[in-house]
């Protein structure tokens, strides 16, 4: 450890920003990878790894990743849902591969454009 100067305090804060935001569940974008048995069998773990890799290489500090159980549409797994703060509804992407994950992140997460050709639908199911 070496003696800190005031600028060093700010640096440490910035470097840990993503980690701290994650711990509070805060993020601009939330990517939920569906991992029910169907998802896992179809390769959802690979999708999760691809998402994590994108986040790491692109230094995406405002993205949080969660996983959930089966979304119901088992035939189109692997699936992931992307929610962006400020956008009206979450978007479900289906039949994913590592390459498609990259496309979604570039188009939707970074540039705000829903990757229409890869999406199933916009919105969520109604729950009572």
């Amino acid at each position: 450890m070496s003696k800190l100067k005031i600028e060093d305090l700010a640096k440490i804060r910035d470097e840990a920003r993503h980690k701290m935001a994650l711990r509070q569940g805060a993020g601009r974008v939330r990517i939920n990878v569906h991992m029910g048995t169907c998802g896992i069998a179809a390769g959802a773990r690979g999708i999760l790894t691809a998402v994590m890799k994108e986040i790491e290489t692109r230094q995406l500090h405002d993205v949080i990743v969660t996983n959930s159980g089966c979304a119901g549409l088992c035939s189109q797994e692997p699936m992931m849902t992307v929610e962006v703060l400020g956008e009206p509804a979450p978007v479900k992407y289906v039949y994913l591969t590592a390459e498609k994950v990259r496309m979604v992140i570039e188009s939707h997460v970074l540039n705000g454009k829903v990757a229409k050709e890869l999406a199933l639908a916009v919105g969520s199911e109604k729950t009572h």
Partner: protein
Amino acid sequence: MVYRTYLMVCAGTGCVANQSMKIKDKLEAEIHRRGLQDEVAVVTTGCNGFCAVGPLMVVQPDGIFYQLLKETDIPYIVEEHLVKGRPVKELLYTPPKEKVPIPKMSDIPFFADQTLIVLRNRGLINPENIDECIARGGYEALGKVLTSMTPEEVIEEIKASGLRGRGGGGFPTGIKWETCKKVPSDIHYVICNADEGDPGAFMDRSTIESDPHAVIEGMLIGAYAIGSSEGYVYIRNEYPIALDRLQTALQQARGYGLLGTNILDKNFDFDIKIARGAGAFVCGESTALMASIEGRPGEPRAKYVHTVERGLWDKPTCLNNVETWANVPQIILKGAKWFTSIGTGDVTNDPWGGSKGTKVFSLSGKVNNTGLIEVPMGISLRKIIFDIGGGIKDGRKFKAVQTGGPSGGFIPESLLDLPVDYEELTKVGSMMGSGGMVVADEDNCMVDMAKYFLSFTQTESCGKCVPCREGTKRMLDILEKITVGEGTEDDLVLLEELSNAVVESSLCALGGSAPNPVLTTLKYFREEYEAHVRDKRCPGHSCRKLITYKIDPQVCVEKGHGCHVCAKNCPDRAIIGETKQVHTIDVAKCGKCGVCYDVCKFDAISVE
């Protein structure tokens, strides 16, 4: 390394005592076994506050709260939640008497109604890693102070914030700092009082276990304002984990040059030594504490000259409680105006005009949600006990709440809408104290509770002054007499007279407040004292010599069919009866332990 999930495992003393470190080890092992070690990180944090349901853990960023964990639960949680994304319903928090669990921590009423300032980092950082603390804004206030504020400006800001001593005295902190600074001397000391002697109180312990740097930073800012370069933390020896975390924190702060000489390159020197208490309640009193640090016996002195003028080694000393220090960095960062927006009253012209900011309470006793809470000043006692505290356990009825530790008074139901405020609590005979809050229900005897707290303060009396040494002892004798059925009307008169005398003439606040439980119970629950004295009866069913257990013969035979369970469990073998026949209790042999009352499944046994 970027993780997708953080498992924040609580490592406060309560959870550690319930094997939370073993749970953490098991989590790491399972995560490795499943190959998730590059995605999921396990972090041990300080106390989350909801001690009633520990060991606990929070999964972030999901915000899912798991409670009452055992080592055997871990493989299932890892498989279901971390691999398959399905939170485990049986291990989520379910409010008492309800069936549907509340998965998210932010939705649980215990947490939702709290406002965290002092405890803002709890459950979010590993307190043994200074980088995590800095990441959450630690030492940013110190940087601001050293670059852009003069010591006088710092003092003005603290004065304007209305911060008052959280150790219980409620003295305006800004004024204390200002007075201390003005005393001409070559040395000024700052001290952190972490003795926390109140039984059942653990606010300071938790703060140090969860975020020791908040306290260190507060002391640094205070030292800069006052002109001090030497500080002490007086911490009771009975807090091993807190002591350990504090020592680690001090070491890491020194490593970064945040303590020592030329801090942050701004020509400011300050360092902190640790002094440990040796088990005396009275050493939480400021003059006794300083005597203890000096190596003298822990006895208070008369305060004609205050410690801010002549304190530790006769030098001007500023002593503040852990919680007071921990508030300082946030006030500097967010401003005095922000702090005054929380709480009661108006402190613009009168520093005692209101209670600003938040207060940390340790809620215990007969409530469902016992634990550590931080709430804005001005919140009602009712909201604390029934919303955050989840109401009285087992559906019993509320009787009284004691605030302020053993020196505090009891507050009855009629005053439950009282706002938490220094003056309001003192007006009704109690006090804010350091933040202990014990809830009593209909099965508590108020005389017995007053006796319990008085016996604590009596034992801890240092013996220096007659009123406290002799007075509390005689008060206790009278209470003993009353609880065994030998009290008289004259005893009640004498008890009240003695109590007032001890309050008025004791040398320090120990004696000055020890009679509070007695005085408030006499005021609000006089009928219980009268029942003990006139009818030789204990309405709270606690005082052994005054209660009788009886078996209802009809219920025993018709419902219980003489099941004999009570007799089997009676340690005094005082229950006579054959199986399938009526049972009776031999009052001469009965030791009034109440086991039969607890084990009878047919409610055939009553206590009077």
